[in-house]
C-alpha cells in the first residue's frame, strides 16, 4: 500500500549545510510530512565555549523555519565515539589509513539515526547525499549521484538492502550547481554557506595536532627501501601512502614521496618521484565486504572500482575468495593503494558494494612495506 505523501513521514538528517537544506525543501515541496533532525556526534566546544555544532544547529533552525517544518536534535556522541572514533584511532595505531566517513554512514547515519527516525514514526529517512536508489522487483540498487563530481556512493558502499528500502536521497538526480541555485532561488539561510571540508570531528583544525591529542607520536627514521636514512619522521600515523608534503627532504632530482611504513621498526619508507615503482601495485585483498544487492558474484566478476573518493573508475577483476574476502586484480597497475581505505565496485551507474583494503599485491606477493 502506497501512502499519500502527506501521510508519509520523512525524517531528514540536517547538518546545517546547503545540501541537506535543499533536500528538505524538495521533500517539503513533494508534500511529505517532513521532520528535520540535527545530529550532534562530537563535542567540539573550545576553550571560549564556542561550538560549531551550535552554529550549525542555528542554521538548521533558520532553514526549518523557512520551510515550516519541525526541527529537533539528537545526540549520538557516545555511539560516534564507540563505533567511529575508536575504529579511527585503532586503524591509525595499526598503521592503516581509516575512512571514518564510511564508518559514520554505516554505524551512525544509517543505523543509530535510522533507528531514531523509526522511533519517531518515520516511513523514510532522507539525507543530502549525492546518490540514487532504485527498486527492481523488491531489490534495491544504489546508483551514482547524477553529478559525477559529487557522487558519494563511495562513502555509502556499506549500506544494506534493509537500509536502502528506507532511504530517500532527494539530491541524487541533481547537479551541485543546481542545488546551490535552488537554495538561492528560495533564499534559504544556508544558500551561501561554504561546504564543510575534511573529517567532521576534525573540521578545519590541523590534522596532526588533532591526532596527537589522542595518540602518542613516536618519531623515527625515514629510509629508502634500500635502507638509506633520509631524515626523521614525526610519527608514522601522520603520513599516508603517496604523500609528498611535509617530508622535508631536499637535494637534487625529483621530489620525495611516502612509499611505505614499517610499523614494527617505526620506519617511514620514502622514494623519489611521483611514479616511484614501489607505489605501484597490481592487486589487493579486501575484507568486510558488503554486496548491496546481497548477492556475491559467483567466482569471478569483471567490473570497475574506485580505491579512493573522487577517483576515476578503473577496470578490475574481482575474485571471491570466501564469504568475507575478495581479491581485486587491476587491469592496469595502480598507484598508492592504501590499506584501511575502501574499495568500491561499480557496474556502470550501479554501485555494487564495497570492502576494506587489507593487503596490496604485486606479482601476487603482498607488499609488506605498505603497512
Amino acid at each position: 500500500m502506497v501512502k499519500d505523501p502527506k501521510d508519509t513521514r520523512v525524517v531528514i538528517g540536517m547538518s546545517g549545510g546547503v545540501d541537506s537544506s535543499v533536500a528538505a525543501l524538495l521533500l517539503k515541496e513533494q508534500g511529505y510530512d517532513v521532520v528535520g533532525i540535527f545530529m550532534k556526534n562530537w563535542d567540539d566546544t573550545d576553550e571560549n565555549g564556542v561550538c560549531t555544532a551550535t552554529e550549525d544547529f542555528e542554521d538548521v533552525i533558520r532553514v526549518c523555519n523557512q520551510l515550516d517544518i519541525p526541527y529537533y536534535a539528537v545526540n549520538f556522541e557516545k555511539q560516534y565515539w564507540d563505533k567511529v572514533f575508536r575504529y579511527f584511532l585503532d586503524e591509525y595505531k595499526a598503521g592503516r589509513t581509516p575512512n571514518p566517513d564510511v564508518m559514520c554512514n554505516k554505524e551512525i547515519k544509517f543505523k543509530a539515526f535510522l533507528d531514531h527516525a523509526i522511533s519517531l514514526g518515520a516511513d523514510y529517512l532522507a539525507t543530502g547525499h549525492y546518490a540514487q536508489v532504485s527498486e527492481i522487483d523488491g531489490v534495491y540498487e544504489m546508483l551514482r549521484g547524477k553529478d559525477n563530481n559529487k557522487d558519494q556512493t563511495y562513502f555509502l558502499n556499506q549500506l544494506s538492502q534493509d537500509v536502502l528500502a528506507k532511504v530517500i536521497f532527494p539530491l541524487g538526480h541533481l547537479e551541485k550547481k543546481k542545488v546551490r541555485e535552488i537554495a538561492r532561488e528560495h533564499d534559504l539561510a544556508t544558500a551561501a554557506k561554504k561546504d564543510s571540508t575534511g573529517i567532521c570531528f576534525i573540521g578545519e583544525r590541523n590534522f596532526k595536532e588533532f591526532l596527537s591529542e589522542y595518540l602518542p607520536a613516536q618519531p623515527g627514521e625515514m629510509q629508502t627501501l634500500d635502507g638509506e636514512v633520509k631524515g626523521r619522521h614525526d610519527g608514522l600515523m601522520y603520513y599516508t601512502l603517496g604523500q609528498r608534503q611535509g617530508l622535508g627532504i631536499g637535494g637534487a632530482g625529483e621530489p620525495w614521496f611516502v612509499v611505505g611504513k614499517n610499523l614494527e621498526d617505526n620506519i617511514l619508507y620514502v622514494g623519489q618521484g611521483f611514479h616511484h615503482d614501489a607505489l605501484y601495485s597490481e592487486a589487493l585483498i579486501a575484507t568486510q565486504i558488503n554486496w548491496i544487492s546481497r548477492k556475491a558474484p559467483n567466482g569471478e566478476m569483471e567490473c570497475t572500482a574506485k580505491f579512493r573518493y573522487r577517483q576515476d573508475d578503473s577496470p578490475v577483476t574481482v575474485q571471491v575468495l570466501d564469504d568475507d574476502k575478495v581479491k581485486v586484480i587491476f587491469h592496469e597497475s595502480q598507484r598508492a593503494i592504501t590499506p584501511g581505505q575502501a574499495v568500491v565496485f561499480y557496474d556502470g551507474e550501479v554501485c555494487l558494494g564495497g570492502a576494506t583494503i587489507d593487503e596490496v599485491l604485486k606479482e601476487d606477493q603482498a607488499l609488506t612495506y605498505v603497512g
Partner: protein
Amino acid sequence: MKEIYLDHAATTPVHPQVIESMVPVYQEVFGNPSSVHQFGRKARRILDDARRTVARSIGANEKEIIFTSSGTEADNMALIGTARANKEKGNHVITTSIEHHATLHAAEQLEKEGFQVTYLQPDESGLISVKEFQEKLTDDTIVVSVIAVNNETGVIQPIEKIGKMLENHPAYFHTDAVQAYGALELEVEELKVDMLTVSGHKINGPKGIGFLYAKEGTVIQTLHFGGEQERKRRPGTENLPAVIGLQTAVELMVEERESRVETYKQYKSLFLDTLLEEQVTFSINGDPERMVATIVNLSFPGMNVETLLTNFDLAGIAASSGSACTAGSVEPSHVLSAMYGASDERTVNSIRFSFGMANSQENVIEAARKISQVIRRLQAI
C-alpha cells in the same frame, strides 16, 4: 492536531487581563518615570503603585523591591552583587547543586573571581539537607542561596529552616522563588530571607520583567551602570508596561492562588491516574509529599529523553526535560544527576510535566493517553 501545553514551568500563557492592563500603558503613559514633568509623574505614580502591589504579595516594604529584566538578572544580582559588595566580610558562598542555571552559573562566576563556593547536594528525594548546610556554614560565609522550589522536580526546599539558622549569622540569605511564587504563599518575614527572586512570565505575566526583593540594609553592588533608577540599584528606564502587566498578574495570582493550586493538583492526579490506567511504567522523581501542585517529573524506564520529547511534540504534547540543551540536544539533567548520580538511568529517561492555565481536565487526560500511545509504540519497536 490539538496541541496540549504541559510546560508551564518553562513559561506560561499571558493572562488576558494582564494584556488588557498593559495596553493603556503603551497608549497613554509613555512618560519616563524619572522625568520631572507631568508625563514623568504620571508614569512614576503607576510604577510606585505596582511596586506596592508586588511588595505586599510577599509581605515586604515597597522600598525593598527592585524591578529587573528577568529572574536570571535578579539571581545574578543576589549572588554576584552581594558577594562583590561584601567581600571584605568573607570569601565563602553556599548554594546547591540543584539551582537554576541563573544561580549556578553566577556561582561559577564567583569562583572565577576567587570566592569559595560550596554546593549542597540533595538526597534521592530531591531535598537539600539542613544538617549538611549547618556543617558547611562558616564564619567566612557571606551569601547563601537556595532555590525555594526546584524547577525540574518541583520539590519544596527547607527555606524557613535555613533562614532560621541564619538569623544570627551575618550572611545574606537569598532564595530563587521563581517556581515557588505562584504555587506557595510566601512571606519574607516567615522565610527569614534577605533576598528573593520572582519572574513575571512564570505566573501568567509578561516576559522581560521580574523583581528582586532585597531586605532593607542589604548591600548590593550594581551589575549595570547608568541612571539612578530603582534607588540606584538597577539603572535603565523602567519597563513600565511590563511592570504593570506583572502587577496585574500578581493581583490575579494572590486572589486565585488557592483555587489555582487546587485545580492544578487535580490536573496532576488526573494525569498520573490516566498514565496508571494505561499501564505505563513510570516513577516520580523526588518526594511527592514535598512537591508543588504545578510540577511533576517522571522517569520512564528503558526510554530516552530525546526520543520521548520529539515523539511527544510530534503528537502535539509540549513537555520538557527541564535541563539545558547544547546545539538542541538534551544533556543529562544536572538536578537528577545530583539526586541519583551521573550514571543513573533516570538522568536520561525523565520528563518534566508542568500544569497551568493552558490545561483542562480533558486535555491533561488526553495528553496522558497520547503519551501512553507513544510509549507503547516505542516499546513495541
